[in-house]
């Protein structure tokens, strides 16, 4: 079977590129690490891929604000190719720093082109925190979370992950348009407080998608739970056969196959 091609975009400070590529590989895609300079210089063309993945890390040191400099670069230097990619019905995922980039470039929630409508700001605890969190998958338009339906368990590791919409109306809009794709919750799915909501995000939002459901960003790291050895409780005592994180990658790859 032909495999969808994934462009894993990296630059100075990207650091989850290899494991994200590995996860896409497990899910049945062919992933390639591509430096932003190569893309900007035309050494690779975004058109040749079906999925654009923005992995975690500290792009450009997260100087100014997390993801800001790469978001600015995408918006200013890769605008045309990204627009063409999106309008061709292709998929985008941003994980952690990648989510921050998607939000700060205006690609998410994406209701106004390239205009930032939401933000991810410093955690209420005012520090970087790594911990495993439970996540609810509300009913949404997101193709990446389609059909998961149950509470999943993934690690977060960030200092600037507090989701904030421009105002209550735009938050309402994200919720009403079913763009809140992943929310922090307790183990039983009930509404979270700190540390279950690790950063103070509005409406417990951990990840959102655009109106088409094809562009998806989240703070938690699905690529860090694609093998049973990565789970904090190991393989023991867990009923589900597949690690939670892989479900997201498989969804993306399944959808992308239709584009082949």
């Amino acid at each position: 079977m032909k495999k969808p091609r994934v462009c894993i975009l990296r630059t100075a400070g990207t650091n989850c590129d290899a494991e994200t590529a590995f996860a896409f590989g497990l899910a049945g895609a062919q992933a390639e690490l591509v430096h932003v300079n190569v893309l900007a210089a035309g050494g690779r063309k975004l058109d040749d891929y079906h999925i654009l993945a923005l992995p975690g890390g500290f792009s450009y040191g997260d100087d100014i604000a997390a993801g800001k400099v790469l978001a600015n670069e995408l918006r200013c230097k890769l605008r045309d190719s990204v627009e063409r990619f999106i309008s061709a019905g292709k998929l985008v995922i941003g994980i952690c720093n990648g989510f921050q980039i998607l939000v700060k470039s205006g690609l998410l929630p994406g209701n106004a082109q390239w205009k930032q409508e939401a933000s991810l700001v410093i955690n209420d605890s005012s520090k970087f925190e790594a911990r495993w969190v439970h996540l609810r998958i509300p009913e949404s338009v997101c193709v990446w979370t389609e059909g998961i339906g149950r509470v999943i368990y993934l690690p977060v590791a960030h200092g600037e992950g507090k989701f904030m919409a421009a105002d209550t109306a735009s938050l309402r809009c994200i919720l009403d348009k079913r763009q809140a794709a992943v929310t922090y919750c307790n183990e039983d799915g009930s509404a979270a407080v700190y540390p279950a909501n690790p950063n103070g995000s509005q409406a417990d939002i951990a990840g959102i998608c655009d109106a088409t459901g094809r562009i998806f960003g989240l703070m938690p790291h699905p690529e860090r739970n694609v093998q049973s050895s990565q789970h904090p409780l190991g393989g023991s005592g867990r009923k589900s056969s597949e690690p939670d994180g892989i479900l997201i990658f498989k969804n993306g790859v399944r959808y992308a196959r239709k584009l082949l």
Partner: protein
Amino acid sequence: MIYRIEVLDKPGLFDAVGEGIARDISDLGISGVSEVRYTQVYLIEGEVTRADAGRICRELLADPISQDYLLCDAAFCEPEQPAGGFSVEVAYNPGVMDPVEESVKKGILDLGIKGAASVKTARKYRINGNISASQADSIAEKLLYNKLIQHIVRRGAPSSHPPSEYNFHLSRVRIIGASGAELRRLSSQGQLFLNLDEMRTIKAYFSGIGRDPTDCELETIAQTWSEHCAHKTFRGRIKYSESLPPSYKGRIGSRMIKGLLKSTIIKVTRELRKPWCVSVFEDNSGIIKFEGRNNICFKVETHNHPSALEPFGGANTGIGGVIRDCLGTGLGAKPVFNTDVFCFGLPDYSFKDLPAGILHPKRVMKGVVSGVRDYGNKMGIPTVNGAVLFDEGFTCNPLVYCGTAGIIPQDKCFKKAGKGDLIVVAGGRTGRDGIHGATFSSGELTEESETVSSGAVQIGNPIEEKKLVDTLMRARDRGLYSSVTDCGAGGLSSAVGEMGAELGAKVELDKVPLKYSGLSYSEIWISESQERMVLAVDGRKADELIALFAAENVEAAVIGEFTGRGRLELFYRGNLVADLDMKFMHDGRPDIEKKAVFKLPAHKETGKPCPSDLGPALKKILSSYDVCSKEWIIRQYDHEVQGGSAGKPLTGVACDGPADAAVVRPLMSSRKAVIVSNGINFRFGRIDPYWMAASCIDEALRQVVACGGPVGRTALLDNFCWGNPDKPDRLGGLVRASYGCYYAAKAYGLPFISGKDSLYNEYMYSGKSRAIPGTLLISAVSVLDDVSKTVSMYAREAGDLIYVVGLTRDEMGGSLYYEQSGLTGSSVPMIYPAQAMKIFSALNRLAAAGALRSVHDCSEGGLGVSAAEMAFSGGLGMEISLADAVYKCADKKRRRNDFILFSESNSRFIVEISPEKKRVFERELKGLSFSLIGTLEEHGQLIVRGLDGRVCLREDIAGLKEAWQKPLRW
């Protein structure tokens, strides 16, 4: 044109940075602060229109959702803040690297705006409330800035000094006719830290060639011969004498030691001849075999002196440096995890008792943790294992150990620069930072250290190093260079000097890329600017290599070549500024002989009776800074990045229990895993460093074993942090610790693969020099064939059986239980290798067979702490009986509940076994010391029955957990 831009959170929004500082201010004991508002300041200078400046604010610098900005056409904005409260603005000193500047410049260029020539940043803190000017000064000094790298910006004062040009002038140092006193003065004024013998040897060398040295030559020799680089104490002769009773276990006998390292640490490795040791004690880290095509390397470094003066920068560059050790091993290893171990003064130490020139332990700790967090997280290397210890003895000299392990293909483990190879420096540019780091760390700290040695302090730029890793690995795999090493202490002098020790090297110092002009040739040569690597490159491959770096914005430059002439020849703009014989540099150092003495200290044992309820004592130990939860630190480190984390530092049903060791899968496609642990206990060293060392090795090994790691595939690293080795009593302890290492490692069959020492950890104030408690860190690394065989420490299921494996002895000396009553004691825990090895092997077999539900090692706080941690991490109760535990004591009166529960005897574990595995388990351990002491229960209490069968401890596990979590829940 200059623009000042201030960016701050919108009114009404939660200012997380400000809130954090407000909490720190209240920790200082200053009340009355109602609010702290944080403002990020940017100063942009250049040909930029006001409209463009506005775009820069809107589109780049201020977050449109959460922040407002103020744009002014001057270095300061008007009007000033309203009265009441204070504003403090902090900027970096000239010459200190500010990584944000480069990112902002890039962002501005990406916007299509050219002409921004310089960008500077500053942080402004608005402190509102009822505080005095002196309180504001105190807040600024204690929390907001460090004068070594930063300054308070005053209105009207120039924000920066224009860089000055450097006018070449060859400077020579008169040494040929110098008297002894003059030689001494030369050494101390020039911060060379060389003794008279060494200075005389240098004088003789230059008399022989009939000229005085240049300043650069003298600096080069001082750096090469520094304790930091030459390890004179461990390699020189030591006349050792000890006075110990004839019956004392662990006598080594008075003797002349020719090379302490060779007689102990390296000797173990030579004698054991493990076939899986690939490269030991010869490269920047030690290499062992891992799986089919890849090996693992591991190195632990210390960065104590810099961390004492500037905790964030010291720890930051400490971790950066050890990562480069890994990059500079063989032809370069990819870093896969970091470790960190710290020793600090007490976090609640009184401010008024603090000696002059010393930062408060809490500030040191917060700074150090931030430094490791910043560098490790940004590098994308998981920080997976560590320890933190506290004692008043570390107030002036905190210890910061940083470790990095890497994965390296088998055919890339060795390197050799060839004659004619070009010398290439890659990575960060060279500046005036870090000058004299190598020699500075080879002397004691004093009240003046912070002014004299401020050049030795710097901060790192992890993203620069991340780019270097990314590109270097690609260059390695394309075979573009023949050798590589890191630029660490001693800078280019050390890196080029070592790489060219055989061949000789010629360097044109004006070819080295500089951060700013004004550096002299000597400064270029010895600068310890971070994030640089030196490579030996075949001339035909140089262009390809430099292009590969450039493609990802890494700067690399050819600065010279390896000549084959056996000399070190340095040029600056065509002028010869140094010409030294490599042989003299590396072999010309005079042998030194040091004296060492050891006698047993006299510490009393307790006369206090055993309390009837041991609950309060257990809670007190759980709440001691050494034992209590380090979650506040651990969560700030990304321990999952790279996806290889299998055994987490925080484990258990709520992911908050203390794991014994970390388990990492460096290759996601392989089932093989690396286990890493550490052993450290300076308290035992107060009685006898020999047994301290043996206990540290036992601790590191038993933590590996507790996680299922095979003894036969375990290697060790040693890191000694000690006082001034020129003082015989300090050196006596160091000798005993080294021999203790030999005894234990040999008996357990564990080779040392690498190590490092940091000496002169003393602080001179009010006329007296105080040394740290001699501290040895043993790091263990082991290879586990199947990651699914990992064992962890938290209780799994009610009804399971609880065993204690290993013999508990009357060894209360140096225990935390004794410390709670102000005692040290004399009965230090020893090791009994014959029995211990059988226990370790049996547990290895049981782990491989999947027969162990959970295992937790017994360390500080003994059985009591171990049982409590296992129970509360699993959310289950536990009932145990001390009468059933095997306990050995010579004196019947010392057969007491408290001693059995809190003795810190080595080689012991608490093990959970499901009832159906009882027979298998007991059969495997037959003939060894072990006993069934209890069961896991649903009731959520820890219940301990004493020797008389009565309950001597009954506590809710929730209460125990709270006692354990509370102290460092900051």
